[in-house]
């Protein structure tokens, strides 16, 4: 029997960790600060509200959640859409990066975000490189 508490990507902290994995930024000092990833999370939520308002239908109200710290606070997104937010956050973080080499990867992640939210088939991830701050770099 599955334990619902074992679900991943249900808290702010788990999103940040997953995004850091995708960006090869797991080791301190981090290239991308917590507040940058939080900004990307909040921005992705706002954008998702625009294209998929039904994700924010609650029993009381339909507000877009907003987060100010990396904590165990729950991000109220249904399981099947959580991967979209990982890509959305990563894409936004890379877009804010001043390295031109990241642009293609940022566009690819953002495209994944939209494909999961309003499409059926996900496009392939593109623009791979060694990644700044990566232990493999």
């Amino acid at each position, binding site marked *: 029997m599955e334990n619902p508490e074992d679900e991943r990507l249900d808290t702010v902290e788990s999103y940040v960790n997953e995004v850091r994995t995708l960006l090869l930024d797991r080791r301190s000092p981090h290239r991308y600060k917590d507040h940058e990833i939080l900004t990307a999370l909040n921005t992705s939520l706002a954008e998702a509200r625009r294209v998929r308002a039904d994700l924010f239908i609650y*029993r009381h109200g339909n507000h877009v959640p907003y987060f100010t710290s990396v904590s165990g606070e729950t991000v109220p997104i*249904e399981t099947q859409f959580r991967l979209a937010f990982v890509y959305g956050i990563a894409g936004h973080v890379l877009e804010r990066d001043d390295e031109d080499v990241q642009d293609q990867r940022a566009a690819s992640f953002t495209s994944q975000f939209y494909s999961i939210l309003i499409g059926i088939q996900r496009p392939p991830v593109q623009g791979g490189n060694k990644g700044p701050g990566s232990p493999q770099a």
Partner: protein
Amino acid sequence: MMNERDVDRLLNLARTELVGASDAGIKAQLYDVCREFFKDSNSWYEHISVSIISGQRHYRITPAEGGMILRLAAVWDNNRIPLSAILPHLDPPSAELELVYPQNTNFTAKCVVTKQIVEPTTREMLPEAPRWLLPVYHETILDGLLGKMMGQTTKSYSNDTQSVYHLRRFRDGIMQARVASERANLYGGQAWRFPNSFRTNSQRGGVSTPFPRPTSW
């Protein structure tokens, strides 16, 4: 209220057909589907007792089994004689019952009202609909749900052709429910009856006899 297993079955089938749909979106749409179903089929009834007081014409009636009062089907006195009445004011979930003519004795009347779902929903954001809805009209509700979801624009599950198909089936299902309700679920029931204007509750004008002329025996 609706059985959990029936709801799970409905939602699981909807999820299978609607790739990329959110549960919250499906449930929100289910509310509208149920609303349209009950509003147009008049299939959700409740019998409510009203204590009639001599000389008083206005009464507030409230459903005891969920939903809101939508229309008045009939009012009878304690001898099963119909009383003329209207619902001049709806105040969900209640309504104001107005007897057209004041009565001169106290008695308990029975009124039959048709109902509609109403907010609030359950904790799971499901409408408070009667238990029989899904066992009896599962296909109709599923068609309504799929049709309305597929009719949305710019979604992964948008499909105009399928939307039209399912909504047509949904409307057919509503009409079947309406007829079944009017005939009280009687198989082979009479499809026609005298209009309301033929109704009478007195024998003024003559005593009924078995035949027009007894001499014709």
